[in-house]
C-alpha cells in the first residue's frame, strides 16, 4: 500500500477517535438514564414553584372573605361551580412576601400579574385586588351564544347599564338574597320618636309627608333610611335642607330615627288608574331591585309602593338630568321619557305598600 494511503487511513482513524471521545466527554452524565433524554431534566421541570396556590392558602389570612365566599354560589363544587379566589384575583405567587416577587415590569407581565400592578408599592406587601370594573364579571356572565344555558348570563345593557357589578353584587357572594335579609332596626324606636319632632314639619307626624313633593318615611326600610341620612351628612347626596338636618345627627340618632320610621305602617295613596296601568307595563326593569310591586326585597333599596307621586317623578327626573347621581339609577333614568316617568310614579304611588 502506498505511503499516502496509509497516512490517510491514520488520519481518518485519529479523527474518528477524537470525535468519539468528544461525544463521550460532552454527553450529559444523566443522559440515557431513563431513555433518550437528559434524566436530570425531569426533576428540574418538576422543581418549578407553583404560582396558583388554591383558596385554602388565602383562607389563612382572609378568613372573613373566605367564609362569605365559601357559603356562596361561587363555591358549589357539587354543582360544578367553583370560582376560587385566584380566578378573579390572579395567581398568589409569593404574596404577601415582597421578597422573590419579580420587580421588573416585564417579569411581572410574564407572571401574568396584571392584577398586582395597580396597587403594588415598593416595600409594601403585594396586593391582589380583583378588577372592580365590569371586565372581571362579564368574562363569565355576559350573555353570549355558546355559553351553556346553565351558566348565569346577563344582557349587559339591559341589566344595569354602565353601573359596576359590585354596586349591587358582592363578588364573594354574588347572589342577591331576596329573602332572609334581616331588616330589624338596631335603634331605639322610642328615642327615635322623640327625635322625629324635628322632621314633622316636612315629613309629617309619623312620617306621612305633608307635601307630595317630599317623601313619605313611614314603613321605609331602616337600612335605606340610615344610608340616606349618612349620604346627606357626608354630602354624597347633596341637599341643602337635609344636609343641614343630618349634620346634627350621630350614628345612634340615625339608627333611632330609622327604627321609629320603619316601624310605622305606610298608607297607600291613589293615583290616575290609566297612568298607573301604563306605568306597570314599564316597571319590569325596576322590579329587579325594587320588587314587582315596588316593595324592595333588599333593605338597602327603598320601597317605592305608596310613595308620593310627585316625589317619585321629581326624583327620577333628577336622576335623569344629573341633579342626583347614582351608579344604577342615573343610567336607568336616562332611558325613560318624561311620560314614562309620570306613569311609573303613578303606578308606584297607587301600589299597595304593605
Amino acid at each position, binding site marked *: *500500500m*502506498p*505511503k*499516502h*494511503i496509509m*497516512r*490517510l487511513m491514520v*488520519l481518518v482513524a485519529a479523527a474518528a477517535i477524537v470525535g468519539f471521545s468528544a*461525544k463521550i466527554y*460532552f*454527553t450529559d452524565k444523566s*443522559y*440515557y438514564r431513563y431513555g*433518550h433524554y437528559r434524566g436530570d431534566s425531569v426533576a428540574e421541570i418538576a422543581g418549578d414553584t407553583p404560582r396558583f396556590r388554591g383558596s385554602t392558602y388565602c383562607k389563612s389570612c382572609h378568613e372573613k372573605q373566605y367564609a362569605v365566599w365559601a357559603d356562596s354560589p361561587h363555591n358549589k363544587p357539587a354543582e360544578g361551580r367553583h370560582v376560587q379566589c385566584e380566578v378573579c384575583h390572579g395567581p398568589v405567587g409569593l404574596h404577601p412576601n415582597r421578597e422573590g416577587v419579580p420587580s421588573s415590569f416585564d417579569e411581572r407581565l410574564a407572571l401574568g400579574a396584571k392584577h398586582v400592578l395597580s396597587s403594588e408599592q415598593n416595600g409594601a406587601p403585594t396586593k391582589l385586588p380583583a378588577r372592580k370594573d365590569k371586565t372581571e364579571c362579564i368574562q363569565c356572565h355576559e350573555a353570549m351564544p355558546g355559553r351553556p344555558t346553565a351558566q348565569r348570563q346577563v344582557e349587559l345593557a339591559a341589566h344595569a347599564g354602565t353601573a359596576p357589578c359590585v354596586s349591587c353584587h358582592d363578588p364573594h357572594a354574588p347572589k342577591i338574597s331576596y329573602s332572609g335579609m334581616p331588616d330589624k332596626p338596631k335603634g331605639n324606636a322610642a328615642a327615635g320618636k322623640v327625635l322625629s319632632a324635628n322632621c314633622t314639619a316636612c315629613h309629617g307626624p309619623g312620617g306621612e309627608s305633608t307635601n307630595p313633593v317630599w317623601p313619605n318615611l313611614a314603613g321605609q326600610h331602616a337600612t335605606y333610611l340610615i344610608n340616606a341620612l349618612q349620604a346627606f351628612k357626608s354630602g354624597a347626596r347633596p341637599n341643602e335642607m337635609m344636609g343641614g338636618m343630618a349634620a346634627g345627627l350621630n350614628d345612634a340618632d340615625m339608627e333611632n330615627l330609622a327604627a321609629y320610621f320603619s316601624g310605622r305602617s305606610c298608607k297607600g295613596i291613589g293615583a290616575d288608574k290609566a297612568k298607573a296601568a301604563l306605568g306597570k307595563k314599564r316597571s319590569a326593569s325596576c322590579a329587579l331591585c325594587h320588587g314587582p310591586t315596588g316593595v324592595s326585597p333588599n333593605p338597602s333599596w327603598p320601597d317605592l309602593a305608596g310613595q308620593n307621586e310627585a316625589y317619585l317623578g321629581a326624583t327620577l327626573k333628577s336622576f335623569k338630568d344629573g341633579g342626583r347621581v347614582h351608579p344604577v339609577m342615573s343610567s336607568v333614568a336616562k332611558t325613560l321619557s318624561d311620560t314614562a316617568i309620570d306613569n311609573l310614579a303613578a303606578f308606584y304611588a297607587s301600589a299597595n305598600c304593605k
Partner: protein
Amino acid sequence: MIGTMAQAAPYVGYVYPNETDIPWSVLIVIYPYITGLVAGAFIVSSLYHVFGMERFKTVARFALLTAVSFMFFVPVPLLFHLGNPQRAFNAVLTPHWTSAMSAFSYVAGFYICLLLLEIWFAFRADIVSLAKTKGGLLGRAYRILTLGSDDVSGKALAIDHKFAFALAVIGIPAAGGLHGYVGFLFGSLKSREWWSSDLMPIIFLLSAVVSGIGLLVVLYVAYSKFRKAALDDACLQGLAKTMWAFLTVVLLIEGLELLEMFYKSLEGIEMVQRLIEGPIRYGMFLQWGLSLMVFATLSYLILTHASGRALVTGMFASGIGMMLGVLAMRWNVVIGGQELSKTMKGLLIYYPEILGHEGLLAVLFIFLCPFIVLWLVTRFLPPWESKARKEVSS
C-alpha cells in the same frame, strides 16, 4: 429578531393560534435547494467516474468542486434558523434516531468527507506537481495535502483510481440518501397534508438532480466564456439528455401527485385548492411554467441534434430556468405546506422579512457564498483538464 416575533402571519378561515407564528422561514427553503444542487452536481461527476461516460470527463472534476463548495454551505441556513445554534452539537452528541433530522449531521458530515476524499484522489497528481512548483504559503498548503508523499507512479495512481472509483460508487447512494433524506424530512410528517406524501423523497431527489445539472450547465458555460475556452458540444448534449430524462420523470411524478390528491379529494381539498389559487399561485406558476418551457427547449435541442451557439444558448437558458423552477418548487413545498393550516379550515400567508437573520438578504448572502468559495477552490485546484495540463507542460 431574538426576543420578538416579527409579525404574526395573517390568515383566512380558522388556523390554530400557534400556527400564526410560522416555524420554518425562507431559510428552510434555501436549505433543501442547496442540498439539491449538491446532489445534482455530484451525479454528473459520477456519470463519468462510475459509469465511464467519457463525454462528461470535461466537467467531471469541476462538478466535484461545485458539489463540495455548495455542500459546505448546506448547514448554514439551518444554523441561522436554530433558536440556539450554540447547542447544534446536541444533535451530534445524542442523535435521536427516530428523528429524520438527527441523521443530518452524520449524513452531511459523511458526505462532505466523501467528497473531500474523492477530490483528493482526483486531484492528487495535480497537487503533487503544484507542491513542487509553487512556493510560499500556497506551496506549503499543497505540500501538506500531499501527506508527504510524491508517489505518482503508475502503480500508485492505479491504486488511487481504485479508491476514487469505490468512493464514487459509495457516493451515488450517499448523494441519493442525502437528498432523499430531505424529502423524507417533509414527507414523513403526518401533521401536514401538503407534505405528507410517500412520493416526497423521490420528487425531492429527482428535482434536485435536475436543478444540480442546471447549475452545472450555467457554471460551465459562464466559466468557459470567462476563460475564453471552447465549449464541448458532446458534453453539453449529454447534459441535455440527462436533464431531459430526469425532468420527464419529475414532471410525471409531480403531475401524478397532484392528480391523485384531487382525484381522491379527501376532507379539506377545498383548502388545498385555495392554497394553489392563493398564497402560492406565483410559485406554482413559476415551477410549472419554467419546467414545461425547459422541457420543451430540451426536447427541441435533442430532436434537432443542436450544436454550437444554439446548443449553448438553449442549455444556458434551460439551466437558469431549471434553477429558478426548482427554487420555486422548494418554496411551494416548504412555505406552501405551512400556509395550509393543520386545521384544514384555513390558510396562512407568509411574508418573508427583508432584513434580519431569517430575511431575504441573509438568504441571498448565504446563497452567494458557495459561488465565491467555488471560485477560490477552482483557483487552488484548477479542474479543467486541458488547461491544467498545458500549464504543467509549459
